């Protein structure tokens, strides 16, 4: 469970971003957005779910409301009154949402994704509201990481290393042993599929995990148990760096993207992110060919969080 101070700061960032975008209410369907805004700890399932109101943030009350039939996993920053129970019945769901204080008379409701049926339901619940896309509002709230978040990401990277170290010690354990070593560190949630590729002259490994809601990972070629560490793209991740700068520093297929409570913005690769500029406070997954690092962009230069612990 994340600290109350971190939970409070994340909620404040969401409320500020809502005020900037003139949103009265946010309805969040994505697990990572809901987790960011509320801190409610819940069962992990793989893959995306159909859009539904997993979390509702109301600016006038400053409250976050979460879809849950129980208060297990409730963070200290929420009260059991902030929960609305899960249901299979769309009519019941409409009733639950209608009872969230501040929702029925909202003028602007932001959603991080939407489905045709939710758009119709929103019109019934808040008749005067305009429903607008707010994925960008959440992206802004999540764009810069606090020192505590950077530390959580560093710890998640260390868990990824626990798997890699176990494999390097004994390659015979394969991906099964790598997964088991990560579980021995208390972690059973992957961010990406663990990759082990034995090549004639090296082993290509890439591991990503979710620890306390935050992602960590590392990837590279390894020879005799030693990381090759031959690419310098991560060193180009400085405040003000542009797509052109990163494309110029990359030597292989590259992907630089935000990393925090999972995969985040900005996203820059050969094909996307042409208008993005890196800023201090961002944390990035920086991939160039087989090498992948997690890097904090700071005014004092790039700081690698994915070095061997």
């Amino acid at each position, binding site marked *: 469970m994340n600290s109350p101070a971190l939970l409070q700061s994340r909620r404040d960032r969401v409320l500020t971003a809502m005020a900037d975008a003139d949103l009265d209410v946010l309805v969040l369907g994505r697990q990572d957005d809901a987790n960011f805004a509320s801190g409610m700890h819940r*069962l992990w399932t*793989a893959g995306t*779910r*159909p859009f539904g109101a997993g979390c509702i943030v109301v600016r006038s009350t400053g409250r976050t409301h979460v879809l849950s039939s129980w208060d297990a996993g409730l963070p200290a920053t929420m009260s059991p009154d902030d929960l609305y129970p899960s249901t299979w019945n769309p009519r019941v769901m409409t009733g639950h949402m209608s009872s969230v204080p501040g929702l029925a008379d909202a003028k602007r409701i932001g959603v991080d994704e939407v489905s045709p049926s939710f758009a119709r339901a929103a019109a019934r619940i808040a008749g005067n509201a305009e429903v607008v896309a707010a*994925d*960008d509002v959440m992206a802004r709230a999540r764009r810069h990481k606090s020192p505590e978040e950077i530390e959580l990401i560093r710890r998640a990277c260390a868990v990824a290393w626990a798997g890699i170290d176990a494999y390097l010690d004994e390659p015979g354990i*394969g991906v099964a042993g790598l997964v088991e070593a990560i579980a021995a560190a208390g972690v059973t949630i992957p961010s990406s599929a663990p990759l082990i590729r034995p090549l004639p002259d090296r082993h290509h490994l890439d591991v990503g995990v979710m620890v306390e809601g935050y*992602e960590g990972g590392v990837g590279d070629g390894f020879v005799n148990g030693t990381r090759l560490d031959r690419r310098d793209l991560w060193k180009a991740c400085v405040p003000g760096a542009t797509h052109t700068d990163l494309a110029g520093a990359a030597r292989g297929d590259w992907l630089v993207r935000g990393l925090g409570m999972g995969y985040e913005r900005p*996203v820059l690769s050969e094909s996307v992110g042409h208008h993005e500029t890196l800023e201090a406070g961002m944390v990035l997954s920086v991939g160039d060919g087989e090498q992948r690092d997690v890097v904090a962009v700071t005014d004092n230069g790039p700081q690698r969080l994915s070095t061997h612990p």
Partner: protein
Amino acid sequence: MTALLVLMHAGTMNAATAPPLPDLARLRRTRLDRLQSEMRRQEVDAAVLLHPPHITYATGFVPEAVDASQLVYHRPVAIVPAEGPPRLHVHEPVGETTDLDAIIGAPLWPELDEGIDALTGAIHTVVGDLDGRRVAVDAITGAMARADVFAGAELHDATRVLGPARLCKTDDEVACIEHAQIINERAMEVARRRCVPGARRSEVAGAFLAELRSLGAHHNEIDPIFQVMPRRLADAVTTDKGAVAFPTGIEDPVFDEGDLVWVDAGHGYEGYASDFGRTWIVGRDPDEAERQAFLEWLQVMDETVAAVRPGATLGDIGRAATAANGGEPPWLPHFYVAHAVGLDSAEMPMVGSDLGEDFDDGFVLAEGMILVLEPVIWHDGVASYRAEEIVVVTGDGCRMLTSHPGYDPYERPATTGSTP
């Protein structure tokens, strides 16, 4: 080598007892036929699909089982016309998907504003001008909404065409589910041996996940649940309806001897979900009260399974379960006594959910429907038992897809009859 072949080579199963492997080409063809027939029946011109189970149903492509945030950005997109091959846009190397009957397109970025032109172009390639067309959609990202990608079209939820198409499973779909279940049960045998006093939940989960990998399976869909259940409701976290909260999936306890552990896990084969549910006791055999709860559960399960046949309503199934439990509904009120699995881990039909009795009484079972029955026996202060069995509705009854490993550490007495 597929996981099933691994099992057969390991000598735990031979060709005579192993269920038939799915014919994947036939599976893909049949699903696309069903979907497009449903689209034509409802005069839907095209479906634009971002939800992984929908993409798998339309194209056969199975997105990786990874954190949702990764999939959101590296989203596959399927665009399905009412006739003719679908288009599939994926981020993975095309080589792995060339055997699909879909036209493979370049990766799309529907999450990003700058990805929208390419998405719009791909949709227009399949559908042409959207003006006045009926389009089924499952997710509209912020970038898609800002650009009003579907301007002029009449939009419908994709479940409207995919729901009816997916309801009755073909033999190949059933084979996928059965195959997924066998692997799940096999991996759980390894996990159960590790569920001993002093072990931590994450270690047991790790043993399960590692064994899945050893069996060649890589599509784990849920952080596996090994939840220690309190004996008394008064000691438990409860739901808004006053029942025990399960599955919370948030604790990482160290197990003690005598802990009652409710187990629940699902992994997929070709995208089709399995559903393992059992109750374990840590470090010892069940005592008399625990065995009694299990026997009652067996009776509820047997009598409920006996009610499953084509023509029965969901209401009939719920009433059979309730009657077998002395008039009390034997299930967690925030769930159901049964749900289906398919490309989703919980899908229609559902029995005893808060959709209500009228819904259940109006829904008639047909051949090919799946039910995962999950009754719960709760003797407050004493013992509880929960487990799950999967059945498929056949021409004249149903067939069980589970129970290969039995109920360790409980034992079904010979006198209660054979497994239905």
